[in-house]
């Protein structure tokens, strides 16, 4: 019994210590010359939907929830943000090659249709990121218009 208590105490100490190890926040106050809004027209409604449902992981600015201050949850969050940004970053969209821009837009459409995005682990807490059919349609039609306008620009 004493042994168990020691182990638990040890874990508690570890838990306290890791609170001081916090990964750098995904926040940027810099201008974004490569932002997608510089490449294609973006209606305010579309921007609003992307902001609330996508930008936490797919942009240079994350709106952190309160539990982001608690480790090890923050590691988990940081991991998601890093891989999300590597996959698609709306703020760096202009830096992609033309072909990749097309692929990204198509993948946005596909993941909305398949329901793979936004992630269910994300919408579990961010209930307002669950998109209605109308919102999905808005994004999909914006994607299609953007693909056309980008392909005209590049060829």
């Amino acid at each position, binding site marked *: 019994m004493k042994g168990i208590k020691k182990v*638990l105490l040890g874990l*508690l100490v*570890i838990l306290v210590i890791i609170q001081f190890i916090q990964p750098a926040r995904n926040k940027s106050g810099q201008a974004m010359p490569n932002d997608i809004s510089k490449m294609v027209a973006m209606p305010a409604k579309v921007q609003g939907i992307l902001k609330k449902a996508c930008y936490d992981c797919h942009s240079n600015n994350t709106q952190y929830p309160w539990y982001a201050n608690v480790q*090890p949850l923050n*590691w988990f969050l940081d991991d998601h943000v890093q891989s999300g940004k590597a996959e698609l970053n709306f703020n760096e969209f202009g830096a992609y090659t033309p072909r*990749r821009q*097309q*692929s990204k837009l*198509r993948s946005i459409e596909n993941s909305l249709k398949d329901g793979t995005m936004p992630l269910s682990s994300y919408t579990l807490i961010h209930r307002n990121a669950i998109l209605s059919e109308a919102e999905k349609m808005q994004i999909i039609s914006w994607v299609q218009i953007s693909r056309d306008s980008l392909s005209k620009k590049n060829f």
Partner: protein
Amino acid sequence: MKTLIYSLAFSLLFLAACSNGNKETQTTATPDSTATKDVVAETSEKGASTAALLSSYIKLKNALTADNDKDAAAAGNEMVAGFASFDKKSLTPEQDKAYTDIYDDGKEHAEHIGANVGNIAHQREHFDMLSKDMYDLVKLLGTNQSLYVDHCPMYNKNKGAIWLSEVKDIKNPYLGKAMPTCGTVQEELK
């Protein structure tokens, strides 16, 4: 209190296990690239630069034709290595620019195919886009084997998709065993 501590300890373990798993898949996605490098470097005739990539692509295509997601993923990873070891030295500046565009896109599709064992529908989505990249790559740099450009009219809700094949017979990688002979030859590349 005890249960609280227990649950904290468990969640800690769980999260640690999670992040470890992620790292593993990342490292397996980059198999040794030196093997393919030698092959590309040895031959320098026209179309030789695309040979290694095309051979992995054909493997990928055949795996999808057989509905085999594991072989498809392996071939996808082979293509990632092929893109990484591709020798750009012989390219003209114009070719280089076009190649970079194709590479940037194609490499990513290959990565996704490699990482999606168990989700063949997703592998096929990326194969669709990758096939267009490979078609343009062959158009740009040539090939030393004859290839057929095949067209599947039904894939992607009847929007259609192309693929490259080494044989004249239609073997459809998008519909697999469900409709193996659906499609037509559109073009021959030499």
